[in-house]
Protein backbone atom coordinates (compact mmCIF):
# COMPACT_ATOMS: atom_id res chain seq x y z
CA UNK A 1 0.00 0.00 0.00
CA UNK A 2 1.85 2.95 -1.22
CA UNK A 3 1.34 6.63 -1.01
CA UNK A 4 -1.71 8.24 -2.58
CA UNK A 5 0.68 9.93 -4.97
CA UNK A 6 1.07 7.40 -7.76
CA UNK A 7 1.98 10.10 -10.22
CA UNK A 8 5.34 10.40 -8.55
CA UNK A 9 6.03 6.81 -9.53
CA UNK A 10 5.28 7.55 -13.17
CA UNK A 11 7.55 10.55 -13.01
CA UNK A 12 10.24 8.35 -11.61
CA UNK A 13 9.85 6.03 -14.58
CA UNK A 14 10.22 8.84 -17.01
CA UNK A 15 13.08 10.50 -15.26
CA UNK A 16 15.23 7.38 -15.08
CA UNK A 17 18.35 8.28 -16.91
CA UNK A 18 18.89 4.93 -18.63
CA UNK A 19 15.92 5.15 -20.96
CA UNK A 20 13.64 2.15 -21.49
CA UNK A 21 15.52 -0.66 -19.75
CA UNK A 22 15.52 -3.96 -21.58
CA UNK A 23 15.24 -5.84 -18.32
CA UNK A 24 13.12 -4.14 -15.80
CA UNK A 25 14.54 -5.18 -12.43
CA UNK A 26 11.80 -7.04 -10.67
CA UNK A 27 11.70 -7.76 -7.02
CA UNK A 28 9.52 -10.83 -7.34
CA UNK A 29 10.72 -13.97 -9.23
CA UNK A 30 14.28 -12.82 -10.05
CA UNK A 31 14.86 -11.33 -6.65
CA UNK A 32 17.81 -12.68 -4.72
CA UNK A 33 15.32 -14.16 -2.35
CA UNK A 34 14.94 -17.57 -3.93
CA UNK A 35 11.55 -18.90 -3.17
CA UNK A 36 10.10 -15.68 -1.87
CA UNK A 37 6.52 -15.52 -2.92
CA UNK A 38 4.57 -12.31 -2.63
CA UNK A 39 2.24 -12.65 0.25
CA UNK A 40 4.20 -15.33 2.06
CA UNK A 41 4.80 -14.46 5.68
CA UNK A 42 8.00 -12.51 6.18
CA UNK A 43 9.56 -11.62 9.47
CA UNK A 44 8.46 -8.97 11.86
CA UNK A 45 10.51 -6.97 14.30
CA UNK A 46 9.11 -5.99 17.64
CA UNK A 47 10.73 -3.52 20.03
CA UNK A 48 9.57 -3.75 23.59
CA UNK A 49 10.52 -1.18 26.19
CA UNK A 50 13.79 -0.44 24.49
CA UNK A 51 16.08 1.97 26.33
CA UNK A 52 19.41 3.07 24.97
CA UNK A 53 22.22 5.04 26.57
CA UNK A 54 25.36 6.81 25.45
CA UNK A 55 27.30 6.70 28.67
CA UNK A 56 25.00 8.43 31.12
CA UNK A 57 22.89 10.11 28.45
CA UNK A 58 19.50 8.42 28.16
CA UNK A 59 18.85 8.60 24.44
CA UNK A 60 15.93 6.22 23.90
CA UNK A 61 13.14 5.94 26.46
CA UNK A 62 10.82 2.93 26.71
CA UNK A 63 10.36 2.59 22.99
CA UNK A 64 7.82 -0.03 21.90
CA UNK A 65 7.23 -0.44 18.17
CA UNK A 66 5.94 -3.21 15.94
CA UNK A 67 7.50 -3.36 12.50
CA UNK A 68 5.19 -5.57 10.44
CA UNK A 69 6.65 -8.10 8.06
CA UNK A 70 7.13 -7.17 4.42
CA UNK A 71 6.21 -3.59 5.04
CA UNK A 72 8.13 -0.36 5.05
CA UNK A 73 7.99 1.55 8.31
CA UNK A 74 9.42 5.01 8.47
CA UNK A 75 10.86 6.72 11.52
CA UNK A 76 10.57 10.48 11.38
CA UNK A 77 11.33 13.21 13.82
CA UNK A 78 13.68 16.15 14.40
CA UNK A 79 17.43 15.74 14.80
CA UNK A 80 18.35 14.15 18.07
CA UNK A 81 15.00 12.45 18.49
CA UNK A 82 16.70 9.07 18.60
CA UNK A 83 15.53 7.61 15.30
CA UNK A 84 18.98 6.48 14.23
CA UNK A 85 19.69 5.09 17.66
CA UNK A 86 16.55 2.98 17.57
CA UNK A 87 17.52 1.53 14.25
CA UNK A 88 21.08 0.86 15.33
CA UNK A 89 19.75 -1.02 18.33
CA UNK A 90 17.89 -3.40 16.09
CA UNK A 91 21.03 -4.90 14.58
CA UNK A 92 23.07 -4.22 17.71
CA UNK A 93 25.35 -1.70 16.04
CA UNK A 94 24.59 0.68 18.85
CA UNK A 95 26.83 -1.16 21.27
CA UNK A 96 29.82 -0.77 18.97
CA UNK A 97 30.10 2.80 20.16
CA UNK A 98 32.28 2.93 23.24
CA UNK A 99 30.20 3.51 26.34
CA UNK A 100 26.90 2.77 24.62
CA UNK A 101 24.43 0.19 25.86
CA UNK A 102 20.82 -0.82 25.52
CA UNK A 103 18.20 -2.56 27.63
CA UNK A 104 14.83 -3.98 26.76
CA UNK A 105 13.99 -6.43 24.07
CA UNK A 106 14.25 -6.47 20.34
CA UNK A 107 12.58 -9.46 18.77
CA UNK A 108 12.98 -10.78 15.27
CA UNK A 109 10.02 -13.16 15.16
CA UNK A 110 10.63 -15.16 18.31
CA UNK A 111 14.33 -14.45 18.59
CA UNK A 112 15.35 -11.96 21.23
CA UNK A 113 18.30 -10.30 19.62
CA UNK A 114 19.69 -9.20 22.97
CA UNK A 115 19.52 -12.58 24.64
CA UNK A 116 22.85 -13.32 26.32
CA UNK A 117 23.63 -16.44 24.33
CA UNK A 118 22.84 -14.94 20.96
CA UNK A 119 25.76 -14.35 18.61
CA UNK A 120 25.69 -10.77 17.44
CA UNK A 121 27.42 -11.71 14.20
CA UNK A 122 24.68 -14.18 13.32
CA UNK A 123 22.00 -11.59 14.04
CA UNK A 124 23.59 -9.02 11.78
CA UNK A 125 23.45 -11.50 8.96
CA UNK A 126 19.70 -11.47 9.20
CA UNK A 127 19.33 -7.74 9.72
CA UNK A 128 21.11 -5.75 7.06
CA UNK A 129 21.93 -2.07 7.22
CA UNK A 130 22.33 0.71 4.71
CA UNK A 131 24.03 3.82 6.00
CA UNK A 132 23.49 7.48 5.41
CA UNK A 133 26.74 8.07 3.65
CA UNK A 134 27.38 5.49 0.93
CA UNK A 135 30.31 3.44 2.18
CA UNK A 136 31.56 0.95 -0.38
CA UNK A 137 34.89 -0.54 0.62
CA UNK A 138 37.38 1.80 -1.04
CA UNK A 139 39.97 -0.82 -1.88
CA UNK A 140 37.49 -3.25 -3.43
CA UNK A 141 36.05 -3.46 -6.91
CA UNK A 142 32.33 -3.28 -7.58
CA UNK A 143 32.20 -7.05 -7.78
CA UNK A 144 34.17 -7.54 -4.60
CA UNK A 145 32.00 -5.06 -2.77
CA UNK A 146 28.84 -6.94 -3.54
CA UNK A 147 30.53 -10.24 -2.85
CA UNK A 148 32.06 -9.06 0.43
CA UNK A 149 29.35 -10.42 2.68
CA UNK A 150 29.05 -13.61 0.67
CA UNK A 151 32.72 -14.33 0.96
CA UNK A 152 32.46 -14.13 4.72
CA UNK A 153 30.29 -17.22 4.81
CA UNK A 154 32.47 -19.06 2.38
CA UNK A 155 30.27 -18.90 -0.68
CA UNK A 156 32.01 -20.74 -3.47
CA UNK A 157 33.53 -18.63 -6.22
CA UNK A 158 31.47 -20.20 -8.94
CA UNK A 159 28.29 -19.23 -7.16
CA UNK A 160 29.52 -15.71 -6.48
CA UNK A 161 29.14 -14.52 -10.03
CA UNK A 162 25.50 -15.44 -10.19
CA UNK A 163 24.70 -14.03 -6.81
CA UNK A 164 26.47 -10.75 -7.54
CA UNK A 165 24.65 -10.53 -10.84
CA UNK A 166 21.29 -11.05 -9.15
CA UNK A 167 21.96 -8.51 -6.44
CA UNK A 168 23.09 -5.85 -8.87
CA UNK A 169 20.03 -6.51 -10.95
CA UNK A 170 17.78 -6.32 -7.96
CA UNK A 171 18.98 -2.81 -7.24
CA UNK A 172 18.88 -1.74 -10.84
CA UNK A 173 22.61 -1.28 -11.15
CA UNK A 174 23.51 -4.22 -13.34
CA UNK A 175 23.26 -2.51 -16.70
CA UNK A 176 25.22 0.46 -15.54
CA UNK A 177 28.16 -1.51 -14.22
CA UNK A 178 28.14 -4.87 -15.96
CA UNK A 179 31.08 -3.89 -18.10
CA UNK A 180 33.22 -2.62 -15.30
CA UNK A 181 32.69 -5.00 -12.44
CA UNK A 182 36.37 -4.92 -11.64
CA UNK A 183 36.67 -1.20 -11.42
CA UNK A 184 36.82 0.37 -7.95
CA UNK A 185 33.56 0.71 -6.08
CA UNK A 186 34.28 4.28 -5.13
CA UNK A 187 34.52 5.26 -8.77
CA UNK A 188 30.73 5.32 -9.02
CA UNK A 189 28.54 8.33 -8.49
CA UNK A 190 26.94 8.89 -5.09
CA UNK A 191 23.62 7.44 -6.07
CA UNK A 192 25.25 4.44 -7.69
CA UNK A 193 27.45 3.89 -4.66
CA UNK A 194 24.44 3.79 -2.42
CA UNK A 195 22.72 1.28 -4.67
CA UNK A 196 25.95 -0.69 -4.61
CA UNK A 197 25.77 -0.72 -0.84
CA UNK A 198 22.18 -1.89 -1.00
CA UNK A 199 23.24 -4.63 -3.42
CA UNK A 200 25.96 -5.61 -0.97
CA UNK A 201 23.37 -5.85 1.80
CA UNK A 202 20.84 -7.67 -0.30
CA UNK A 203 23.39 -10.20 -1.51
CA UNK A 204 23.58 -11.92 1.84
CA UNK A 205 19.80 -12.33 1.87
CA UNK A 206 18.85 -10.82 5.21
CA UNK A 207 15.28 -10.80 6.40
CA UNK A 208 15.17 -7.21 7.50
CA UNK A 209 16.81 -4.17 5.98
CA UNK A 210 17.48 -1.12 8.11
CA UNK A 211 18.09 2.13 6.30
CA UNK A 212 19.46 5.14 8.11
CA UNK A 213 18.61 8.15 5.94
CA UNK A 214 19.81 6.29 2.85
CA UNK A 215 19.14 9.09 0.40
CA UNK A 216 19.94 12.17 2.42
CA UNK A 217 23.39 12.51 0.86
CA UNK A 218 22.11 12.02 -2.68
CA UNK A 219 20.73 14.15 -5.45
CA UNK A 220 16.96 14.12 -6.16
CA UNK A 221 17.13 11.73 -9.11
CA UNK A 222 19.16 9.18 -7.21
CA UNK A 223 16.83 9.65 -4.29
CA UNK A 224 13.83 8.74 -6.36
CA UNK A 225 15.61 5.69 -7.72
CA UNK A 226 16.35 4.55 -4.20
CA UNK A 227 12.76 5.07 -3.18
CA UNK A 228 11.58 3.05 -6.13
CA UNK A 229 13.98 0.34 -5.10
CA UNK A 230 12.64 0.34 -1.56
CA UNK A 231 9.18 -0.11 -2.92
CA UNK A 232 10.26 -3.25 -4.76
CA UNK A 233 12.40 -4.60 -1.97
CA UNK A 234 9.58 -4.68 0.51
CA UNK A 235 8.06 -7.63 -1.32
CA UNK A 236 10.82 -9.73 0.07
CA UNK A 237 12.09 -7.86 3.12
CA UNK A 238 10.86 -6.03 6.15
CA UNK A 239 12.18 -2.52 5.89
CA UNK A 240 12.74 0.16 8.48
CA UNK A 241 13.76 3.52 7.14
CA UNK A 242 14.87 6.57 9.06
CA UNK A 243 14.27 9.75 7.19
CA UNK A 244 14.39 13.48 7.61
CA UNK A 245 12.38 13.90 4.49
CA UNK A 246 8.70 13.73 5.19
CA UNK A 247 7.77 13.56 1.55
CA UNK A 248 9.98 10.53 1.30
CA UNK A 249 8.18 8.85 4.18
CA UNK A 250 4.90 9.69 2.57
CA UNK A 251 6.00 8.19 -0.73
CA UNK A 252 7.58 5.06 0.51
CA UNK A 253 6.30 3.89 3.89
CA UNK A 254 3.27 1.83 4.83
CA UNK A 255 3.33 3.15 8.35
CA UNK A 256 5.24 5.88 10.07
CA UNK A 257 6.55 6.40 13.58
CA UNK A 258 7.03 9.91 14.88
CA UNK A 259 9.69 10.27 17.55
CA UNK A 260 10.60 13.18 19.74
CA UNK A 261 13.38 13.37 22.30
CA UNK A 262 13.86 9.64 22.48
CA UNK A 263 10.22 8.71 22.81
CA UNK A 264 7.62 7.39 20.42
CA UNK A 265 4.90 9.98 20.09
CA UNK A 266 2.75 8.41 17.46
CA UNK A 267 2.79 5.34 15.21
CA UNK A 268 0.15 4.93 12.54
CA UNK A 269 -0.58 4.46 8.86
CA UNK A 270 1.50 6.92 6.91
CA UNK A 271 -1.56 8.49 5.41
CA UNK A 272 -3.02 9.23 8.78
CA UNK A 273 0.18 10.64 10.27
CA UNK A 274 0.47 13.16 7.52
CA UNK A 275 -3.14 14.13 7.01
CA UNK A 276 -4.76 13.65 10.40
CA UNK A 277 -2.31 12.97 13.22
CA UNK A 278 -3.68 12.30 16.67
CA UNK A 279 -0.97 14.02 18.67
CA UNK A 280 -0.51 17.73 18.50
CA UNK A 281 3.27 17.47 18.48
CA UNK A 282 3.09 15.21 15.44
CA UNK A 283 0.93 17.73 13.74
CA UNK A 284 3.33 20.53 14.50
CA UNK A 285 6.23 18.54 13.08
CA UNK A 286 4.61 17.35 9.89
CA UNK A 287 3.29 20.77 9.10
CA UNK A 288 6.78 22.15 9.48
CA UNK A 289 6.23 24.25 12.55
CA UNK A 290 9.48 22.96 14.01
CA UNK A 291 12.31 20.52 13.37
Amino acid at each position, binding site marked *: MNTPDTTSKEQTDMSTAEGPPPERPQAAPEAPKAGAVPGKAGHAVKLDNLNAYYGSEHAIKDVTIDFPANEVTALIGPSGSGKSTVVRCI*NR*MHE*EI*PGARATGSVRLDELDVYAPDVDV*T*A*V*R*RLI*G*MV*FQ*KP*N*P*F*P*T*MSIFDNVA*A*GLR*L*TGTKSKDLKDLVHRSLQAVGLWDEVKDRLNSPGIGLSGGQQQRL*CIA*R*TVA*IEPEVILMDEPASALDPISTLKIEELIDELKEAYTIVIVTHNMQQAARVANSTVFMLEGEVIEHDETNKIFTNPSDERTERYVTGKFG
Partner: protein
Amino acid sequence: MEASATTVTGGRSALERSPASRLPDRALKWGLSALAAAILILIVYFFIRLIGESHSVFSQYGLSFVFGNDWDVNRNIYHGAAMLVGTLVTSTIALIIGVPVAVASALFINELCPRRLRQPLSILVDLLAAVPSVVYGLWGVFVLAPKLLGGEKWFASTFSFIPWIGGGTPTLYNYFIAGLILAIMILPIVSAISREVIATVPLENKEAALALGATRWEMIRMAVIPYSRPGITGGAMLGLGRALGETIAVVLVIGAAPQIGNHLFAQGNTFAAVIANEFGEAQGIHVSALFAAGLVLFILTLIVNIIARWFVSRGSHGARGTGATGMTIASTDLSEA
Protein backbone atom coordinates in the same frame (compact mmCIF):
# COMPACT_ATOMS: atom_id res chain seq x y z
CA MET B 1 53.08 45.60 2.11
CA GLU B 2 53.57 48.97 3.74
CA ALA B 3 51.92 51.71 1.83
CA SER B 4 54.28 54.45 0.98
CA ALA B 5 52.47 57.67 0.56
CA THR B 6 53.48 61.15 1.09
CA THR B 7 50.98 63.55 2.40
CA VAL B 8 49.97 66.65 0.59
CA THR B 9 52.40 68.68 2.57
CA GLY B 10 55.24 66.45 1.53
CA GLY B 11 55.90 64.85 4.90
CA ARG B 12 55.71 61.20 5.56
CA SER B 13 52.22 59.80 5.99
CA ALA B 14 51.32 57.85 9.06
CA LEU B 15 51.06 54.72 6.98
CA GLU B 16 54.62 54.65 5.90
CA ARG B 17 57.21 52.92 8.01
CA SER B 18 60.68 54.22 7.95
CA PRO B 19 63.18 52.08 6.06
CA ALA B 20 65.03 51.65 9.30
CA SER B 21 62.11 50.01 11.01
CA ARG B 22 61.69 47.60 8.16
CA LEU B 23 65.23 46.44 8.66
CA PRO B 24 64.62 43.94 11.47
CA ASP B 25 61.93 42.28 9.40
CA ARG B 26 64.16 42.05 6.39
CA ALA B 27 67.06 40.85 8.44
CA LEU B 28 64.97 38.23 10.09
CA LYS B 29 63.56 36.99 6.85
CA TRP B 30 66.89 36.75 5.12
CA GLY B 31 68.57 35.34 8.16
CA LEU B 32 66.07 32.56 8.50
CA SER B 33 66.06 31.85 4.79
CA ALA B 34 69.82 31.58 4.88
CA LEU B 35 69.53 29.11 7.71
CA ALA B 36 67.10 27.02 5.75
CA ALA B 37 69.27 27.17 2.67
CA ALA B 38 72.27 26.19 4.76
CA ILE B 39 70.62 22.89 5.54
CA LEU B 40 70.28 22.06 1.89
CA ILE B 41 73.80 23.17 1.16
CA LEU B 42 75.08 21.05 4.01
CA ILE B 43 73.59 17.90 2.59
CA VAL B 44 74.98 18.55 -0.86
CA TYR B 45 78.36 19.47 0.57
CA PHE B 46 78.46 16.29 2.58
CA PHE B 47 77.78 14.25 -0.52
CA ILE B 48 80.54 15.98 -2.39
CA ARG B 49 83.10 15.56 0.37
CA LEU B 50 82.16 11.95 0.91
CA ILE B 51 82.54 11.21 -2.76
CA GLY B 52 85.86 12.97 -2.71
CA GLU B 53 87.17 10.97 0.20
CA SER B 54 86.12 7.66 -1.24
CA HIS B 55 87.19 8.49 -4.73
CA SER B 56 90.48 6.68 -4.60
CA VAL B 57 88.85 3.44 -3.62
CA PHE B 58 86.19 3.60 -6.29
CA SER B 59 88.66 4.51 -8.96
CA GLN B 60 90.68 1.50 -7.97
CA TYR B 61 87.92 -1.03 -7.51
CA GLY B 62 84.91 0.35 -9.26
CA LEU B 63 81.75 -1.50 -8.45
CA SER B 64 83.58 -4.54 -7.26
CA PHE B 65 84.01 -2.58 -4.07
CA VAL B 66 80.42 -3.38 -3.36
CA PHE B 67 80.03 -6.71 -5.01
CA GLY B 68 83.43 -8.31 -4.76
CA ASN B 69 84.02 -10.54 -1.82
CA ASP B 70 87.31 -10.06 -0.11
CA TRP B 71 87.88 -7.59 2.65
CA ASP B 72 91.34 -8.02 3.98
CA VAL B 73 92.84 -5.22 5.96
CA ASN B 74 96.25 -6.85 6.15
CA ARG B 75 96.60 -7.20 2.42
CA ASN B 76 94.95 -3.82 1.85
CA ILE B 77 92.23 -5.30 -0.28
CA TYR B 78 88.74 -3.92 0.07
CA HIS B 79 85.83 -5.64 -1.55
CA GLY B 80 82.76 -5.17 0.50
CA ALA B 81 80.33 -7.91 -0.48
CA ALA B 82 80.48 -9.27 3.02
CA MET B 83 79.25 -5.95 4.35
CA LEU B 84 76.55 -5.77 1.72
CA VAL B 85 75.32 -9.24 2.53
CA GLY B 86 75.50 -8.59 6.24
CA THR B 87 73.61 -5.34 5.92
CA LEU B 88 70.89 -6.94 3.85
CA VAL B 89 70.66 -10.09 5.93
CA THR B 90 70.37 -8.34 9.27
CA SER B 91 67.88 -5.84 7.91
CA THR B 92 65.80 -8.62 6.40
CA ILE B 93 65.74 -10.49 9.69
CA ALA B 94 64.77 -7.26 11.41
CA LEU B 95 61.88 -6.74 9.01
CA ILE B 96 60.68 -10.34 9.15
CA ILE B 97 60.57 -10.36 12.92
CA GLY B 98 59.87 -6.73 13.68
CA VAL B 99 57.23 -5.65 11.20
CA PRO B 100 54.59 -8.32 11.90
CA VAL B 101 54.92 -7.82 15.64
CA ALA B 102 54.76 -4.04 15.25
CA VAL B 103 51.74 -4.10 12.94
CA ALA B 104 49.98 -6.69 15.08
CA SER B 105 50.51 -4.59 18.18
CA ALA B 106 49.24 -1.54 16.34
CA LEU B 107 46.09 -3.41 15.30
CA PHE B 108 45.59 -4.65 18.81
CA ILE B 109 46.08 -1.27 20.45
CA ASN B 110 43.82 0.56 18.04
CA GLU B 111 41.11 -1.97 17.32
CA LEU B 112 40.91 -4.54 20.03
CA CYS B 113 42.17 -3.46 23.39
CA PRO B 114 39.98 -1.67 25.94
CA ARG B 115 40.01 2.08 25.45
CA ARG B 116 41.65 2.94 28.72
CA LEU B 117 44.61 0.69 27.92
CA ARG B 118 45.30 2.37 24.62
CA GLN B 119 47.46 5.22 25.78
CA PRO B 120 49.49 3.29 28.36
CA LEU B 121 50.25 0.54 25.85
CA SER B 122 51.21 3.06 23.19
CA ILE B 123 53.54 4.83 25.55
CA LEU B 124 55.16 1.56 26.56
CA VAL B 125 55.80 0.51 22.98
CA ASP B 126 57.14 3.96 22.15
CA LEU B 127 59.46 3.76 25.12
CA LEU B 128 61.56 1.25 23.23
CA ALA B 129 62.64 4.14 21.06
CA ALA B 130 64.04 6.01 24.01
CA VAL B 131 66.63 3.38 24.77
CA PRO B 132 70.00 4.50 23.36
CA SER B 133 71.52 2.10 20.89
CA VAL B 134 74.63 1.63 22.98
CA VAL B 135 72.40 0.30 25.76
CA TYR B 136 70.81 -2.08 23.26
CA GLY B 137 74.33 -3.18 22.47
CA LEU B 138 75.15 -3.63 26.13
CA TRP B 139 72.06 -5.72 26.71
CA GLY B 140 72.57 -7.64 23.50
CA VAL B 141 76.15 -8.57 24.31
CA PHE B 142 75.66 -9.62 27.91
CA VAL B 143 72.06 -10.79 28.08
CA LEU B 144 70.48 -11.64 24.75
CA ALA B 145 73.36 -13.33 22.98
CA PRO B 146 74.41 -15.64 25.80
CA LYS B 147 70.86 -16.53 26.75
CA LEU B 148 69.80 -17.40 23.24
CA LEU B 149 72.89 -19.36 22.32
CA GLY B 150 71.51 -22.61 23.65
CA GLY B 151 68.29 -22.14 21.75
CA GLU B 152 70.15 -21.26 18.60
CA LYS B 153 72.23 -24.40 18.83
CA TRP B 154 69.12 -26.49 19.26
CA PHE B 155 67.45 -24.75 16.35
CA ALA B 156 70.43 -25.17 14.06
CA SER B 157 70.70 -28.86 14.73
CA THR B 158 66.96 -29.57 14.63
CA PHE B 159 66.49 -27.76 11.35
CA SER B 160 69.80 -28.68 9.82
CA PHE B 161 68.04 -29.77 6.66
CA ILE B 162 67.12 -26.20 5.77
CA PRO B 163 69.99 -24.70 3.81
CA TRP B 164 71.67 -21.70 5.35
CA ILE B 165 69.23 -21.45 8.23
CA GLY B 166 70.18 -24.68 9.93
CA GLY B 167 73.17 -26.91 9.93
CA GLY B 168 75.87 -24.56 11.12
CA THR B 169 77.40 -24.09 14.52
CA PRO B 170 76.10 -20.93 16.09
CA THR B 171 78.63 -18.47 17.39
CA LEU B 172 77.88 -16.21 20.31
CA TYR B 173 77.55 -13.14 18.12
CA ASN B 174 75.97 -13.63 14.76
CA TYR B 175 73.57 -12.38 12.08
CA PHE B 176 70.55 -13.58 13.97
CA ILE B 177 71.26 -11.74 17.18
CA ALA B 178 72.03 -8.58 15.25
CA GLY B 179 68.82 -8.96 13.28
CA LEU B 180 66.83 -9.61 16.42
CA ILE B 181 68.16 -6.51 18.16
CA LEU B 182 67.42 -4.50 15.06
CA ALA B 183 63.88 -5.89 15.04
CA ILE B 184 63.39 -4.62 18.58
CA MET B 185 64.84 -1.25 17.67
CA ILE B 186 62.56 -0.69 14.68
CA LEU B 187 59.48 -1.89 16.52
CA PRO B 188 58.51 1.48 17.99
CA ILE B 189 58.65 3.44 14.78
CA VAL B 190 56.83 0.86 12.68
CA SER B 191 54.21 0.49 15.39
CA ALA B 192 53.74 4.23 15.82
CA ILE B 193 53.27 4.89 12.14
CA SER B 194 51.00 1.89 11.78
CA ARG B 195 48.88 3.11 14.64
CA GLU B 196 48.52 6.50 13.06
CA VAL B 197 47.57 5.07 9.71
CA ILE B 198 45.13 2.59 11.20
CA ALA B 199 43.44 5.40 13.08
CA THR B 200 42.54 7.05 9.78
CA VAL B 201 40.41 4.16 8.57
CA PRO B 202 36.92 5.63 8.17
CA LEU B 203 34.48 4.45 10.78
CA GLU B 204 31.82 3.93 8.13
CA ASN B 205 33.84 1.22 6.40
CA LYS B 206 34.34 -0.62 9.66
CA GLU B 207 30.64 -0.34 10.42
CA ALA B 208 29.76 -1.59 6.95
CA ALA B 209 31.82 -4.70 7.57
CA LEU B 210 30.27 -5.31 10.98
CA ALA B 211 26.78 -4.75 9.61
CA LEU B 212 27.39 -7.53 7.09
CA GLY B 213 27.87 -9.93 9.94
CA ALA B 214 31.64 -9.92 10.11
CA THR B 215 33.48 -11.00 13.22
CA ARG B 216 35.87 -8.52 14.72
CA TRP B 217 38.86 -10.08 13.00
CA GLU B 218 37.00 -10.24 9.68
CA MET B 219 36.20 -6.57 10.03
CA ILE B 220 39.89 -5.81 10.54
CA ARG B 221 40.75 -7.96 7.55
CA MET B 222 38.12 -6.40 5.31
CA ALA B 223 38.12 -2.76 6.26
CA VAL B 224 41.22 -1.88 8.26
CA ILE B 225 44.13 -3.71 6.71
CA PRO B 226 43.46 -3.01 3.01
CA TYR B 227 42.98 0.67 3.70
CA SER B 228 46.13 0.93 5.81
CA ARG B 229 48.38 -1.07 3.58
CA PRO B 230 50.23 1.78 1.83
CA GLY B 231 50.86 3.65 5.05
CA ILE B 232 52.00 0.55 6.89
CA THR B 233 54.32 -0.30 4.02
CA GLY B 234 55.81 3.14 4.37
CA GLY B 235 56.28 2.62 8.06
CA ALA B 236 57.98 -0.70 7.44
CA MET B 237 60.31 0.94 4.98
CA LEU B 238 61.21 3.62 7.48
CA GLY B 239 62.02 0.81 9.84
CA LEU B 240 64.16 -0.70 7.11
CA GLY B 241 66.02 2.57 6.68
CA ARG B 242 66.66 2.58 10.39
CA ALA B 243 67.90 -0.98 10.40
CA LEU B 244 70.24 -0.38 7.48
CA GLY B 245 72.03 2.45 9.21
CA GLU B 246 72.17 1.18 12.76
CA THR B 247 75.77 1.01 13.83
CA ILE B 248 76.57 0.68 17.48
CA ALA B 249 74.20 -2.07 18.53
CA VAL B 250 75.05 -4.10 15.47
CA VAL B 251 78.81 -3.80 15.66
CA LEU B 252 78.73 -5.19 19.17
CA VAL B 253 76.69 -8.30 18.40
CA ILE B 254 77.45 -9.30 14.87
CA GLY B 255 80.92 -10.62 15.38
CA ALA B 256 82.44 -8.19 12.88
CA ALA B 257 83.94 -10.87 10.72
CA PRO B 258 85.13 -9.63 7.35
CA GLN B 259 83.58 -12.48 5.45
CA ILE B 260 80.13 -13.64 4.48
CA GLY B 261 78.81 -15.86 7.20
CA ASN B 262 77.58 -19.09 5.70
CA HIS B 263 74.60 -19.63 7.92
CA LEU B 264 72.06 -17.72 9.97
CA PHE B 265 73.98 -18.04 13.18
CA ALA B 266 77.37 -17.18 11.79
CA GLN B 267 79.35 -14.04 12.25
CA GLY B 268 79.21 -11.33 9.67
CA ASN B 269 79.58 -7.63 9.18
CA THR B 270 77.69 -4.62 7.90
CA PHE B 271 78.74 -1.39 6.25
CA ALA B 272 77.91 0.61 9.32
CA ALA B 273 79.61 -1.81 11.66
CA VAL B 274 82.82 -2.02 9.68
CA ILE B 275 83.19 1.72 9.74
CA ALA B 276 82.80 1.89 13.48
CA ASN B 277 85.04 -1.08 14.00
CA GLU B 278 88.00 -0.30 11.83
CA PHE B 279 88.05 3.44 11.79
CA GLY B 280 90.26 3.84 14.81
CA GLU B 281 93.33 2.24 13.32
CA ALA B 282 92.71 2.76 9.65
CA GLN B 283 95.27 4.45 7.47
CA GLY B 284 95.70 5.41 3.88
CA ILE B 285 93.49 3.61 1.46
CA HIS B 286 91.82 1.76 4.29
CA VAL B 287 90.34 5.05 5.43
CA SER B 288 89.21 5.71 1.91
CA ALA B 289 87.56 2.32 1.80
CA LEU B 290 85.67 3.07 4.98
CA PHE B 291 84.47 6.35 3.55
CA ALA B 292 83.35 4.47 0.47
CA ALA B 293 81.39 2.17 2.73
CA GLY B 294 79.86 5.26 4.27
CA LEU B 295 78.90 6.55 0.87
CA VAL B 296 77.21 3.30 -0.06
CA LEU B 297 75.38 3.32 3.24
CA PHE B 298 74.32 6.92 2.81
CA ILE B 299 72.92 6.37 -0.65
CA LEU B 300 71.17 3.20 0.41
CA THR B 301 69.43 4.77 3.38
CA LEU B 302 68.59 7.89 1.40
CA ILE B 303 66.82 5.88 -1.28
CA VAL B 304 64.95 3.73 1.19
CA ASN B 305 63.86 6.77 3.17
CA ILE B 306 62.64 8.63 0.12
CA ILE B 307 60.58 5.67 -1.04
CA ALA B 308 59.29 5.14 2.47
CA ARG B 309 58.07 8.68 2.89
CA TRP B 310 56.31 8.49 -0.42
CA PHE B 311 54.42 5.45 0.81
CA VAL B 312 53.54 7.04 4.10
CA SER B 313 52.19 10.16 2.46
CA ARG B 314 50.08 7.98 0.20
CA GLY B 315 48.86 6.04 3.17
CA SER B 316 47.73 8.61 5.66
CA HIS B 317 44.94 10.08 3.54
CA GLY B 318 43.04 11.23 6.55
CA ALA B 319 45.83 12.16 8.91
CA ARG B 320 46.95 15.73 9.23
CA GLY B 321 49.50 15.32 6.50
CA THR B 322 53.12 15.18 7.55
CA GLY B 323 52.13 17.05 10.67
CA ALA B 324 50.81 14.08 12.52
CA THR B 325 53.21 11.54 11.16
CA GLY B 326 55.98 14.08 11.30
CA MET B 327 55.63 14.57 15.02
CA THR B 328 55.46 10.84 15.50
CA ILE B 329 58.53 10.20 13.46
CA ALA B 330 60.38 13.00 15.15
CA SER B 331 59.52 11.83 18.61
CA THR B 332 59.99 8.12 18.14
CA ASP B 333 63.25 8.54 16.28
CA LEU B 334 64.82 8.90 19.64
CA SER B 335 67.82 6.71 19.24
CA GLU B 336 69.94 5.66 16.38
CA ALA B 337 73.35 4.23 15.68
